[in-house]
C-alpha cells in the first residue's frame, strides 16, 4: 500500500487482502454493480416463481424429485443441487442479499454525508451567464435594482426557494475571503451528489463548473434553489427503509411463533402451549413461557356455497378461556382474525372429520376423529392406523359428502361439497403399518400390507371385516384449522413500508431547480433578468418557470401596468404571489 505511484497504477499481480477488500468495495459502489445485483435478484426471484418452493408446496417438490411431475428426474435433481426449491433460503441467495445491502450501504454513506453538508451549508451556485440557461425572461421595472432584488428575494422565499445567503449586495460585488470560501463549499456536495445521486434515479446535469462560483459576479445576483432537499431526502428515506425492513424481517424470524392445529366442532379444542400444535414454527428467541396459555374450543362452524359450489361463507363460533380464567364467546370469519392475549388466531382451512371406531372383539383398536383432507372433485381422503391388533390394520378412507342413492339403490356422488348424504368408502389393509417410515397422517404405506376388503358406510353404521374386527362410522362433523401466531415486528415492518412510500414520492416527483435573478439599471429603469434551470423533470419546470416570472412581474411591474398607482397595496400583491 505504500507502493510508489507506478505500481499503484497497475496494481499488484496477486492482490493482497486489503487490496481485494478495497477493490470489492469500489466495485460495490458502482451503480452498474447495483443494477447487476438487482438483475441477479430478479433472476433468482423468477426462478422461485416457476420452480415449486419447498416451504410453499413441499408435495409438488417431492413429485418433481420423484419424476412423477415436472421436467423429469435429472433436471429436477440438478435444480435441487443448486437449491432452486428453496431459493429464498439458499446460501447463495443470502450472499446475494448481503452483496445488495453492502452495495446499498456503500452508496448511501457518501450520500448521507453529502446530504448533511447540503442541509447545513448547501447553497445554490451562481450562474456565470444567465442568458445561457435554458429558461430566460426579462422584466422591466421602475424600482431601483437593490429594491427590486429585495422584492425578488421575498417572492422566491415565499415560493419556498432557498436563497444563497451571501448574495452580494449591489454595492459590494468584489468577493471577500469568506465569500470565496463558502462559494467553494457546495462543490464537494455537488460532486458527491452526482455520483451517489445515480442510485436514486437522479438525472444529474452539472450547472456551471463549481469554479464559476469563484468568479467575480459582474452584477448583483440572486441565486435560489428548490427541491434539492426533498428529492435527495426522499430518496435517502426510501433507501434507508430497506434497513428497517431487513431488521424487521430478521428480528421477526427470531421472535416469531406460528402454530397450526385443527379442532373438531363440539370437541375439546386446544390450549396454547408449546406442545399443542400439529405444526409449529418458533423463532430462536421464542420460549415456551411466551405462550399466552388460553384455551380455544370450536362451538360451531358454518360454511355455505353458491349454487355453483363456490364457497361464500366460512364462520367459526369459538369459546376462549383465558389463562386468568375469564371466558368469552367470539366469532371469526375469513379476513377477520381473532386477537387473543396478543396472539393472532386465523382460520386457515377446514375439512370433514369422521369419527371411526375399529373394534376387535371387546378391544377398541381405534376410536378417534379423522381430519380428512380434500383431494378435489368433492372427495375427501383420510386414513386410520390401528397398530394395536394383530396383524396391524390400516384403513384407507374416502368420503363423498353428498352421495344419495340412485334409482338402482346404489349411491351416486353428486360432487356437492355439503354433507347432505355422506358416504364413507373404506379399504382395509392388514400387515405392517411401517411406522419406521415417515408418513402423513392421512397417508397409508401399504407396501407391506395386503388388501383385506372394502366397502361403504353411512354415518351410524358399521361393517364386519374378514378378521372378525368391525369398523364403525360413528359420526361426521367438521374440523377447522387454526393458525395461532405472534409477530412482534409487524408494526416495524409496516412502518418501514410506509417510509418506503413516503420517501419514494418526493424521490420521484420532487425536482431540483435553480433560479437566478440579476438586475441592471439602464437609463433610470431597471431590467431584471430571470433565468432558470431544472435538474430533473424539465417538463414540470417548463410549466413552473412562467408562473415564477409572472409572480415576479406582478410584484415588480404594478407601476408600469397601472401608471396611476405609484403606491400599490403590497399585501394585495403578496396574496397573489404566495399560493
Amino acid at each position: 500500500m505504500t507502493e510508489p505511484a507506478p505500481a499503484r497504477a497497475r496494481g499488484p499481480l496477486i492482490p493482497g487482502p486489503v487490496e481485494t477488500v478495497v477493490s470489492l468495495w469500489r466495485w460495490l459502489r458502482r451503480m452498474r454493480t447495483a443494477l447487476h445485483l438487482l438483475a441477479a435478484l430478479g433472476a433468482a426471484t423468477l426462478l422461485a416463481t416457476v420452480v415449486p418452493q419447498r416451504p410453499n408446496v413441499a408435495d409438488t417438490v417431492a413429485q418433481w424429485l420423484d419424476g412423477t411431475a415436472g421436467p423429469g428426474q435429472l433436471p429436477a435433481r440438478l435444480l435441487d443441487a443448486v437449491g432452486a426449491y428453496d431459493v429464498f433460503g439458499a446460501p447463495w441467495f443470502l450472499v446475494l442479499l448481503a452483496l445488495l445491502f453492502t452495495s446499498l450501504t456503500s452508496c448511501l454513506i457518501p450520500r448521507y454525508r453529502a446530504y448533511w453538508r447540503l442541509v447545513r451549508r448547501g447553497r445554490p451556485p451562481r450562474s456565470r451567464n444567465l442568458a445561457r440557461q435554458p429558461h430566460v425572461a426579462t422584466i422591466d421595472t421602475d424600482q431601483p435594482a437593490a429594491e427590486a432584488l429585495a422584492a425578488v428575494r421575498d417572492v422566491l422565499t415565499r415560493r419556498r426557494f432557498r436563497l444563497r445567503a451571501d448574495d452580494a449586495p449591489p454595492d459590494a460585488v468584489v468577493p471577500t475571503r469568506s465569500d470565496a470560501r463558502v462559494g467553494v463549499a457546495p462543490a464537494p456536495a455537488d460532486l458527491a451528489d452526482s455520483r451517489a445521486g445515480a442510485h436514486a434515479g437522479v438525472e444529474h446535469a452539472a450547472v456551471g463548473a463549481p469554479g464559476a462560483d469563484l468568479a467575480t459576479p459582474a452584477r448583483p445576483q440572486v441565486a435560489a434553489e428548490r427541491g434539492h432537499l426533498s428529492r435527495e431526502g426522499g430518496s435517502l428515506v426510501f433507501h434507508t427503509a430497506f434497513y428497517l425492513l431487513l431488521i424487521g424481517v430478521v428480528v421477526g424470524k427470531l421472535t416469531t411463533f406460528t402454530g397450526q392445529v385443527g379442532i373438531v366442532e363440539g370437541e375439546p379444542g386446544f390450549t396454547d402451549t408449546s406442545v399443542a400444535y400439529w405444526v409449529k414454527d418458533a423463532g430462536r428467541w421464542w420460549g415456551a413461557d411466551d405462550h399466552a396459555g388460553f384455551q380455544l374450543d370450536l362451538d360451531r362452524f358454518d360454511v355455505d356455497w353458491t349454487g355453483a359450489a363456490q364457497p361464500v361463507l366460512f364462520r367459526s363460533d369459538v369459546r376462549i378461556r383465558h389463562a386468568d380464567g375469564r371466558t368469552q364467546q367470539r366469532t371469526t370469519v375469513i379476513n377477520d382474525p381473532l386477537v387473543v392475549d396478543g396472539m393472532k388466531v386465523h382460520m386457515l382451512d377446514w375439512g370433514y372429520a369422521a369419527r371411526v371406531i375399529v373394534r376387535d372383539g371387546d378391544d377398541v383398536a381405534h376410536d378417534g376423529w379423522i381430519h380428512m383432507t380434500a383431494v378435489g372433485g368433492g372427495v375427501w381422503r383420510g386414513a386410520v392406523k390401528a397398530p394395536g391388533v394383530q396383524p396391524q390394520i390400516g384403513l384407507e378412507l374416502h368420503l363423498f359428502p353428498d352421495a344419495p342413492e340412485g334409482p338402482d339403490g346404489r349411491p351416486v356422488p353428486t360432487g356437492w361439497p355439503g354433507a347432505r348424504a355422506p358416504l364413507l368408502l373404506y379399504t382395509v389393509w392388514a400387515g405392517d403399518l411401517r411406522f419406521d417410515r415417515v408418513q402423513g397422517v392421512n397417508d397409508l404405506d401399504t407396501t407391506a400390507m395386503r388388501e383385506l376388503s372394502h366397502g361403504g358406510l353411512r354415518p351410524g353404521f358399521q361393517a364386519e371385516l374378514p378378521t372378525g374386527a368391525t369398523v364403525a362410522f360413528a359420526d361426521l362433523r367438521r374440523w377447522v384449522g387454526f393458525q395461532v401466531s405472534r409477530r412482534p415486528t409487524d408494526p416495524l415492518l409496516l412502518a418501514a413500508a410506509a417510509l418506503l412510500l413516503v420517501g419514494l414520492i418526493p424521490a420521484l416527483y420532487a425536482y431540483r431547480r435553480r433560479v437566478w435573478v440579476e438586475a441592471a439599471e439602464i437609463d433610470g429603469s431597471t431590467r431584471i433578468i430571470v433565468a432558470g434551470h431544472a435538474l430533473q423533470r424539465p417538463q414540470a419546470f417548463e410549466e413552473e418557470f412562467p408562473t415564477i416570472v409572472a409572480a415576479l412581474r406582478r410584484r415588480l411591474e404594478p407601476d408600469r401596468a397601472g401608471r396611476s398607482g405609484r403606491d400599490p397595496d403590497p399585501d394585495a400583491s403578496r396574496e397573489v404571489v404566495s399560493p
Partner: protein
Amino acid sequence: MTETQLAELSRTLFFPWTFLLYAAAMVASFYRLAFTQVDRARDERPRAGVAVGRLGVAFTVAGLGTHLASIVTRSIAAGGRVPLGNMYEYSSAMGFGVVLIALVVVHGRLRRPELNGFLLMGALVMMGSALVLYAPAEPLMPALQTHWLKIHTFSMMIASTIFIVAFVFTGLYLIRDLAERRVASTLDASHRGSTVGAAYAPGALDEHDPAAPEDRPEGYEDDAGLADRHLYGRALRDAVNPVPIVIGATALTVAYALLFNNPVATAVAPALIALGVVAAWWTLPALPSAATLDSLAYRTTAFAFPILTFGVIAGAVWAEQSWGRYWGWDPKETGAFLAWIAYAGYLHSRATRGLRGRGAAGIGVVAFLLLMFTYYAVNLWITGLHSYAGAATSNPPWIGIAGALIVYGLVKAVTARAATDPVGG
C-alpha cells in the same frame, strides 16, 4: 332483469361493441397519423385526416361509454361487488384504464393524440385476453370479501394500466430512436449525437421533432443538411427495415399467445401487434422525437411505480389479515416482487451513464414482460393462493426457466452493449 341476463348483456352486447368501437377508433387514429402528417410536411392544409381523427375520438368516447356499461352491468350481475374478481374483469378494467388515459391524459393534457392509436391497440390486446379468459359473474370467495380487495387489486390494476401505457411509449421510443440514430449516422460526424434523443441531449426536447408545432419553421436545413422535414421524415422511415421488427414482435406474441391454448388469441394478438409495429414504422416521421417519447415513458413509469409499491404493501397487509402472514413467497407475491425489482432497475438505469436511453428502455421492456408474466403465467399455470383465474392448466416450467435465462441474458446484453457504446452511436 335477472343477474344472468345482465351478465349476458354485459358479455354479448356491451363488450363486443366496445371492442369494435375501439378497433374503429384505432384504425381512424392510425389513418389520421399516417396521412395528415404527410400533408403537413408539404406545408399544405391538413385535409382528410383531421375529419377521420375526429371520428376516431368520437369512436373512443362511445367505446368508453359501452365499456363502462359492460363493467357496471357485470358488477351488478355479480352481486354489486367491485368488478376486479377474476382475470376477465381485471383485463377488461385495464383496457378501460388504458383508453381513459389515452383520451384524458395523452390527448387532453399532453396533446399527443397521434399516440392514441397505439394505446388503443394495447387496450384491444388486453380486452382480447379478457375474452379468452372469460369467467362467469359470481360473488367473491370469502378470502376476497374485504376492503383490502378494493385497495390492493385496484392499485395493482391502476399501476399495471399505466405500465401498459409506459410500455407503448417505450416501444415507440425504441423504433424512433433507431431511426433517428441511423439517420444521424449518415450525417457528418460533427452533427452526430445531436439528433440522438433522450438523455444524451438534455434540454433538446423536440428540437428535431418534425411534428412539432409551427413555431419552429426553419426545420432541419441548418442542422441536418436535409432539405426539409418531409425529407427528414422520409429518411427516418427509410432508415428502418420493418420486416425483422414485425417478425420479432409477432414471434414473441405468438409464443406468448400459445400459452393461452386458444386459437383466437394466438391469431388475433400477434396480428394486432404486427399492425401496431407496421403503423409505428409507417408513421415514424409523425411520431414525437425519441427524446420526447423516452421522457414520456420515464414519466409514466415513475408515476406508476409508487402505485405498484403501495399495491404490494397493501397486498402484504391483506395477506397478514387473511392468511396470517404478510409475505409467504407465494408465486404471485414472488412475481409482483419480480416486477417491482425490474421497474426499480429501470428507474435506476435512467440515472446511470451509458444506460440511459436505449439501455433503460430495454430494461423497461423486460420489466413489462415480467409484469405480464406475473399476471398471465402465474395466474394460469402456477398454482398458488392467488390463482383466481379458474382451473390451472398444466405447468410448463421450462418455458419459465428458459425465460429466466433469456431475461438475464437480455439485461446483460443491454448493459454490455450500452457500456461499449457510451454515446449510443
